[in-house]
C-alpha cells in the first residue's frame, strides 16, 4: 500500500505491506535508527516518536496509519545542529546513563512540555509513566524535563 508521510520536515513516499510497523518503517526503510525498539509491546516507550506533535509508540502503530501525517523522530529535533531546550536540559542535567531509553524519553518529554503538562515534579513523573529507564536514572531525567519546561 502506498503512503506519504512527512518525517522530520521531509516528505517520504513508500509502498509498504499494511502489517509493517511504523518503527520498522522509520528504522529499516528510512534508516532513522535513533528510534529504538525496546519491549516491542508498547510498555517501555523506547520507540516513542511525535505524530502531529504528540507522543506515540511507533511499535504499536502501523506505518499505514501514519499516512498523510507529520512525524518527528529524535533525528529531527535539533535544527541546524542546535539542540532543543529538552535536549539541552538532558545534556546539562545528565539525564541519561546507558542511553537506550533516551530518544524515547526526550521525545515523550518534548510532547509533555509542548502540551503544558510538565508543571511540577509529580506531573513530570506521571507524564513519563510510559517510558522506562532500565538504568533507573529517573531523578536526572525528571530534573531535565523540569528545567526544559522552566518549572524546576
Amino acid at each position, binding site marked *: 500500500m502506498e503512503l506519504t508521510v512527512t518525517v522530520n520536515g521531509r516528505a517520504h513516499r513508500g509502498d509498504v505491506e499494511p*502489517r509493517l510497523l511504523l518503527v520498522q518503517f522509520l528504522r529499516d526503510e528510512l534508516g532513522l535508527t535513533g528510534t529504538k525498539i525496546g519491549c516491542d509491546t508498547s510498555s517501555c516507550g523506547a520507540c516513542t516518536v511525535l505524530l502531529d506533535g504528540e507522543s506515540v509508540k511507533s511499535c504499536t*502503530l*502501523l506505518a499505514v*496509519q501514519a499516512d498523510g501525517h507529520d512525524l518527528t523522530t529524535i533525528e529531527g529535533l535539533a535544527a541546524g545542529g542546535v539542540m532543543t531546550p529538552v535536549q539541552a536540559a538532558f545534556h546539562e542535567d545528565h539525564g541519561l546513563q546507558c542511553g537506550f531509553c533516551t530518544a524515547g524519553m526526550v521525545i515523550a518529554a518534548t510532547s509533555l512540555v509542548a502540551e503544558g503538562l510538565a508543571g511540577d515534579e509529580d506531573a513530570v513523573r*506521571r507524564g513519563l*509513566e510510559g517510558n522506562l529507564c532500565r538504568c533507573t536514572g529517573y531523578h536526572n531525567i525528571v530534573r531535565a524535563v523540569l528545567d526544559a519546561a522552566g518549572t524546576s
Partner: protein
Amino acid sequence: MIPAPFEYVRVETAEGALAELAEHGDEAKLLAGGMSLLPLMKLRLAVPSVLVDVARVRELAGARVEGDELVVGALTRHHDLHHDELVRRECGVLAAVAGEVGDPQVRHRGTIGGSVAHGDPASDLPAVLVALDATVVVEGPRGRREIAAPAFFLGFLETAIEDDELLVEVRFPRSGPAGFDFRKFRRRAQDWAIVGALAARVADGTRVALVNMGSAPLRARGVEEALAAGAEIDDAAARAAEGADPPSDLHATPEFRAHLARVLVARALAAAS
C-alpha cells in the same frame, strides 16, 4: 513481533465502515487507535484478514450535551476526554478515569469506543460505564441499538456488539464535576490494574464499580446497599468482593484480589465523600 498479513481498508464515514463490515463479516476487525487490537495482532491472538481503519471518521469524535446526558463519540481519544472542559464539568469521573488509562502515548491514540468494544475486564473506562449506568449505542444493518452498560459487557473480551455493528457513541448521565474517586493497584506505573475501584456519588446514592474482579466490569452492589442502609465506609467496603469472581494469574490470587478490592473501595469511598 509482526502481525499476520491482512488487507487494510481506510474509511472516512460511519456508513463506509458499516459497508465494509457488511462485506467482510467476522473476517474484519475495526481499527481505531489500535492500542488494544495491535498488541493482540502482534501476538497473533487476533488474526483478522481485513482491518477497517475508522480512526479518521471525524463524525464520531468529540463530546456534546444532549438533555440530561453527556454524549461521547466512539472515536474520542482518552487524551481529549481527559482534557475536555465540557467532560470535566458534566461528567468529571469520566474525564478523570480517561486520564488513568495506560500512559500519555496510549492516551494520544486510544479511543473510548475501542476500549469499550474490546471488553477487557482489566481496562479502566468500562468501570465508569457500569457505575453510571451509561448507554452504549451501536449501529448496524438492523438499525440503531441502545444497550445499557451492564448488559453490554458479557464476559472476557466479549460484548453485545455483533460482527456487523459499529459502536458509535456512549451516553453518560450528567453526574457533575465532583464527588468521585478512582484508584487502581498495579506493580508498575502504566500497568493494567490488578484491581481497580471506582466510587461515584450520584443523585440517588453512591455507586461503586470494580475493575478486574471478574470476567466483566462489576458493580459492588453489596457495598452500595450497605451505604444506602447507613453503614460506615469500612463496614460497607468489607462487602466489596461479594459476588465477584476475581481471576487468578501471576500478579495475584483471587484471595489477594478480594483483599485489594475491600481496601481500594474503602479508600475510594473516603476520597469521594
